[in-house]
């Protein structure tokens, strides 16, 4: 059988005036058979999306193909002129973009999107438009009323479904899904992937799934291409990858997956919580580390609600947090888990005084957080620090690490000059960024994501706080970096004896670093208890759904067996 797509020695380079050229795809070769479902996996910067765009000829300046050939049905598509290329988009290759949310023209209805495609290719007679549209919408699981809507009126998941339906309307032989579920909520991600899987089966097109998540890919595809630094390091059937990975990189990726429901949950460098000495001893040693701190206070959240005014006139007010109560004891580690919109981040804002509750009170020791003046807010921030989700936006790109860390040291520690510098270097040492002098002088863009997050953690520790609020601290990091950061957090928490509120949608990480857990849904607490217990024996249906949504190669193994 002839391959439907054959890529030979393809190279893609990014060239931008004033910057060094970057070889994003480096002599890549592979072939796809008709009807295959192939995964293309790699971490950020591996060149997977670039490759995806190149094989559908959608790459734009400053990306440029600088070598190799791409044969689609035996023809080198790099030779095609614009009009031929355009025409063969129908019945040829299609693409579903990474950010499906933004892939639709905000000022055209969904129906018009379909009509534009039908008009452009004329492959559906005008009389058949309606039927075809409804049919396609059904295929992606959307009601036909959706056709009359504008993209802005649809949720992210619905928009991604529409994108898929639009791509499908071209009747393509090859479909490339570029991270089709990133930026979507966990539960939605799973549903979309299910749709893609069943469509691929029913329609029979060849599919390429580009993703950073090996778990997701292994669950869906028959064959996996693993990319690393512009090259394909492993190309093997999914089962082989899972059971007998050849490349070290693939093995490393695989090692970072675990099932949060398991008895024992371990990651590289991260032994199971139950097996570690997390008892009283650690807390005592922690207490000694916090010299100068007389007594620690608990954060008490008492029947707190937060209602936001309606986003537009005539709409309902939004209840982000609905009558939530809990106490974060000193030294405790508590997970706050839920899908996006469950109110978990709002709770963080309420605790840190950024927002004020509509009802109820948040207290930290003697301080009523909602009533604080400017000085007391400072006092609060000295004791309650925050670790941010996105290490790329949490550091000012123009300040050196040293400047960033010096500020809290100066402001809260009252240190100046050499003393402040000494303290900064100590902090860097603490978060494992050595050699410290070198790191101190660096700017954020010279650091990797993991290193940045360590700087963020160091900054949070600079004021010697009692409480850390960690808002999805690893969700933006590549899988391989997560364990390291989590381990650091855990170590520090124990050494310094701080309590932590760990906010996440990722149950695996919650299992690794917290004692207790609260599951939030729609602003309400639906389940709470000891982390290991809740995850192993979930009672609430929502918790169960969250657990099911965790991508897990092991489950793929189960399915494959």
């Amino acid at each position, binding site marked *: 059988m002839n391959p439907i797509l054959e890529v030979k020695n393809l190279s893609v380079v990014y060239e931008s005036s004033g910057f060094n050229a*970057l070889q994003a795809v480096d002599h890549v070769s592979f072939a796809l058979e008709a009807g295959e479902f192939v995964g293309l996996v790699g971490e950020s910067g591996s060149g997977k999306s670039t490759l995806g765009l190149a094989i559908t000829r959608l790459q734009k*300046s400053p990306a440029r193909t600088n070598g190799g050939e791409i044969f689609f049905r035996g023809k080198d598509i790099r030779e095609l002129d614009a009009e031929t290329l355009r025409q063969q988009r129908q019945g040829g290759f299609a693409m579903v973009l990474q950010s499906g949310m933004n892939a639709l023209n905000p000022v055209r209805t969904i129906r018009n999107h379909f009509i534009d495609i039908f008009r452009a290719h004329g492959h559906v007679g005008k009389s058949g438009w309606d039927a075809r549209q409804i049919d396609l919408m059904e295929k992606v699981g959307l009601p036909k009323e959706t056709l009359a809507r504008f993209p802005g009126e649809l949720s992210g998941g619905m928009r991604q479904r529409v994108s898929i339906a639009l791509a499908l309307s071209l009747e393509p032989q090859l479909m490339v899904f570029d991270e089709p579920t990133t930026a979507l909520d966990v539960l939605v991600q799973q549903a979309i992937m299910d749709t893609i899987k069943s469509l691929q089966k029913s329609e029979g097109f060849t599919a390429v799934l580009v993703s950073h998540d090996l778990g997701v890919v292994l669950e869906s595809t028959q064959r996996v291409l693993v990319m690393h630094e512009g090259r394909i390091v492993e190309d093997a059937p999914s089962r082989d990858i899972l059971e007998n990975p050849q490349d070290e990189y693939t093995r490393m990726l695989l090692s970072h997956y675990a099932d949060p429901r398991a008895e024992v949950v371990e990651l590289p460098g991260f032994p199971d919580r139950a097996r570690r000495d997390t008892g009283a001893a650690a807390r005592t040693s922690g207490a000694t580390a916090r010299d100068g701190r007389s007594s620690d206070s608990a954060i008490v959240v008492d029947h707190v609600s937060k209602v936001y005014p309606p986003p537009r006139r005539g709409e309902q007010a939004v209840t982000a947090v609905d009558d939530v109560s809990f106490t974060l004891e000193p030294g405790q580690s508590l997970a706050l888990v839920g899908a996006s919109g469950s109110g978990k981040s709002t709770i963080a804002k309420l605790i840190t005084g950024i927002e004020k509750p509509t009802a109820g009170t948040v207290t930290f020791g003697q301080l009523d957080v909602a009533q604080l003046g400017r000085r007391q807010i400072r006092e609060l921030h000295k004791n309650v620090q925050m670790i941010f989700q*996105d290490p790329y936006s949490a550091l000012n*790109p123009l300040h050196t690490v040293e400047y960033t860390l010096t500020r809290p040291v100066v402001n809260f520690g009252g240190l100046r000059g050499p003393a402040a510098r000494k303290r900064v270097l100590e902090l860097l040492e603490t978060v494992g960024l050595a050699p410290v002098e070198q790191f101190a002088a660096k700017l954020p*863009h010279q650091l990797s994501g993991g290193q940045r997050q360590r700087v963020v953690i160091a900054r949070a520790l600079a004021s010697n706080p009692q409480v850390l609020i960690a808002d999805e601290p690893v969700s933006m990091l590549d899988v391989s970096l997560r364990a390291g950061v989590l381990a650091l957090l855990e170590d520090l928490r124990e050494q310094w004896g701080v309590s932590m509120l760990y906010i996440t949608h990722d149950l695996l990480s919650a299992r690794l670093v917290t004692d207790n857990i609260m599951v939030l849904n729609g602003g309400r607490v639906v389940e709470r208890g000891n982390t290991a217990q809740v995850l192993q024996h979930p009672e609430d249906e929502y918790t169960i759904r969250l657990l099911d949504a965790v991508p897990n190669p092991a489950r793929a193994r189960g399915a494959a067996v």
Partner: protein
Amino acid sequence: MTTTQNISTAAPGVTKPPRRFTFITRSTATLWANWKSRLGLIILACFILVAIFAPLLAPYGASQDGFERNADASAAHWFGTTAAGEDVLSQLIYGSQISVAVGFIAGLLSTIVAMVIGLSWGYIRGFGADVINFIVNLFLVIPGLPLMIVIAAYLQNGGLVMIVAVIVITGWAWGARVLRAQTQTLRSRDFVTAARFSGEPAWRIVFKEILPNMTSIIAGGFFGAATSAILAEAGLEFLGLGDSSIVSWGTILYWAQNSNALLTGQWILLFAPGLCIALLALSLTLINFGVDAISNPRLREGKSR
């Protein structure tokens, strides 16, 4: 380990400002790489050089009179003479000093005003923001030129200081609005929240955290403000609202119109200073194409789509 994030959506290096020391050189390099801003830089450099070396370049003094009146172009007077018997070329050369100086000083001052107001407006919330909003709106709805004339008349006694003051008073509001919008965007970035958690006072957050991240937008605002300052200066001088006793392109136009250069057929007296004004303003506009490209990577010059 590579440090690039997500190559597919952004060109490498886009979100990474270089070290502070090299910032200016890097920006200039980026500007130079863009043919439009390169052209603009060349024109601007010419004008600045002419302004600096005016005494060397000009064949006569700026207001040296006593030549034949209303003379046509000749070897002695390349562009002819004015009705008062001054050399037009020398006046053009000396006039560049005023336009360049007023453009830059007024542009700078109104940018600073726009910056201080725009940034505080974008950062603070509640009553204070309302008050600023109110003031800025007021300045935006009042018609510009009449306001200029009224202020020029109020500040009376001519002079460049007055012109600069008029331009600054009438020119800062738009910039403030743009900077406010940008401040609001940056304000929601995590590093700003983080700075608050680091115990930073508000002014430090605004000027040390937010401000440096808007450099290119502020630069763009500056070039825009300088452009309109140059045009406004010329306009005020032309209307006779400035100091007609100095020599600038605007006053050359004023005197040319006053002594009917068109009637004597010396349209060059109107044409040349106007062209100089337009070219100087154009150079700044062209540079701004490059500045825009720095703040918005999509506007970069690249290969054709």
